[in-house]
């Protein structure tokens, strides 16, 4: 019976254990004092506005440089921000206006269409990679996809300059080369950042939507024709 009782109360025996009072217990308790003298560095409320803006601009510029030379760094992932993508998206959508047939139904994409394609496309690709089991967070992925549009924006600027000098076969060949090169660069840059070690079996499944996304944007840039 005693053993049955003991078995039913597994920790029954421990209540009798007590620490003997002859064993001294000593030590130090130190409360780490916060950096009260360095409060100013953590509170950005009092700094001049110029400093705030310049700091953000520097962060955005830093990320642009990382896109130009894509190597596996965590700058884009760790401090994500969406200023760069917004700037690039608005620039792209504005530059794709003023194309042929402003009043024509069969013209180029409207501002809203470009905007929707870029943002909605980025969101869908991010959801896709998360559903496939990726570990990148939502906004980090949006940040990477947005910043990697930069080569295509540069290509659009180059295309518009080339189109100023005429729209014959030579200019088409030049534009095709420029757009293809920048499309390849964008895809390569974004896969370098989005590469996930957890998804070795599904890498192609994650990369293909990114490829399609930049292909469609590249197509919109290539088919931009100047207004009359």
């Amino acid at each position, binding site marked *: 019976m005693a053993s049955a009782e003991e*078995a039913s109360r597994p920790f029954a025996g421990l209540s009798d254990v007590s620490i003997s009072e002859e064993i001294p217990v000593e030590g130090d308790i130190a409360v780490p004092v916060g950096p009260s003298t360095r409060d100013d560095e953590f509170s950005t409320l009092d700094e001049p506005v110029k400093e705030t803006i310049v700091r953000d601009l520097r962060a955005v510029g830093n990320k642009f440089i990382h896109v130009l030379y894509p190597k596996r760094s965590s700058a884009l992932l760790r401090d994500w921000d969406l200023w760069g993508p917004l700037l690039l998206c608005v620039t792209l959508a504005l530059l794709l206006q003023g194309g042929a047939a402003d009043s024509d139904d*069969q013209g180029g994409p409207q501002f809203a269409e470009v905007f929707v394609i870029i943002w909605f496309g980025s969101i869908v690709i991010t959801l896709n990679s998360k*559903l496939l089991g990726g570990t990148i967070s939502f906004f980090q992925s949006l940040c990477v996809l947005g910043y990697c549009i930069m080569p295509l924006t540069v290509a659009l600027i180059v295309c518009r300059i080339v189109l100023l000098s005429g729209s014959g076969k030579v200019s088409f060949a030049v534009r095709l080369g420029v757009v293809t090169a920048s499309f390849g660069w964008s895809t390569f840059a974004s896969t370098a950042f989005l590469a996930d070690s957890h998804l070795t079996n599904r890498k192609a499944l994650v990369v293909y*939507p990114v490829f*399609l996304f930049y292909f469609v944007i590249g197509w*919109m840039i290539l088919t931009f*024709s100047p207004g009359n």
Partner: protein
Amino acid sequence: MSASNDPAATAGAPAAGEDVKLDLSEDEAAQEESSELLGGQKSAGGFWTFEYYQSLFNVDTVQVLDRVKGSLMPLPGRNFVKHYLRNNPDLYGPFWICVTLVFSVAISGNLSTFLSSLGDPSYHYRPQFHRVTIAAVVIFLYAWLVPIGLWAFLTWRQGAERQVGGYSFLETVCVYGYSLFIYIPTSILWIISYEWLRWTLIVVAMVISGSVLVLTFWPVVRDDTRVTAVATVVTIVVLHTLLAIGCKVDELGGGVKGSGCLNSCVSINHKMVQIEIAKLNLLNGNMPILKNSCFFFQPYRNGCILSNCSGNTFLHQMSHMINSQMLLLVKMTIKMTGRDIRMMTCLVFSDNVQLAPPELHSTTVHKKLCVIPTCRIHS
């Protein structure tokens, strides 16, 4: 008495362990059985949780490629659902195949319009972005509404029977999604503008895609009455055909556009003007203008059509059509009514061109084809 009532409690401490072990293994066996009965549906939560959708994307690259290959080569013995899906339907394939198909239809339609008017310096390239919107709506509606309808119909027909042969909703969507894959290379190959090639391609695509669907759904449907079975299969095939034809029509819907230049505009007296149109390009996508189209030239000035002018048009010389798209050298004399005309613009009408962009519809019976730019009248 108490000992025999409860076998677990009568066993003493040493025997309690064995009973516990047996219980556990029975539990595992019970779980496996129930999961097989449920058709292997391993949904990890309600449909409002993220994990549920994650379980729908549980495929590897190799599996997706395998399924795509299976949709390209339907063999009579292989049921797509049983052979390739194997209780693991995914939503990755259907969704991205639909998206790719939308863009490939829009882009290749645009390219074929561009290529058919190559070498024409007065043709201005139009990206025609509205195609993407239309194609997206049509294709996504087809890929999602038709499986819903078919699954609901099949489930209703199964009725009270055990759904041994029935497919789940996700499997139906999956089959339809993968069966659309053949249309992607078809739409890309449509850029080549030979009619016989296009018809061959579309027939081949319809046969392959339709047979994937038929082979998948026939085993489920054949247990039913003969009429229902045949009707179901025929409906599947007809809807698929409509989609294919819809894609073809959408590609050809380039609208009608044209351009030309008035070479000279000489006034004979203050009422009669002789105009000469050097070249008239009528571009209408890929449908040739019918050979015996009747063209009316109607001059107008300041945005209003001068009344009754077409009745006074005398065609002196009209060259033959070079190909289905170009007219050369139209010379005519037009008797003007009203005040002196200084500038002249010509509208070209035809009465049996079938595809005209909607913004050019006018209240007249004829469809306006193009506007020839204004020319100053020399006296």
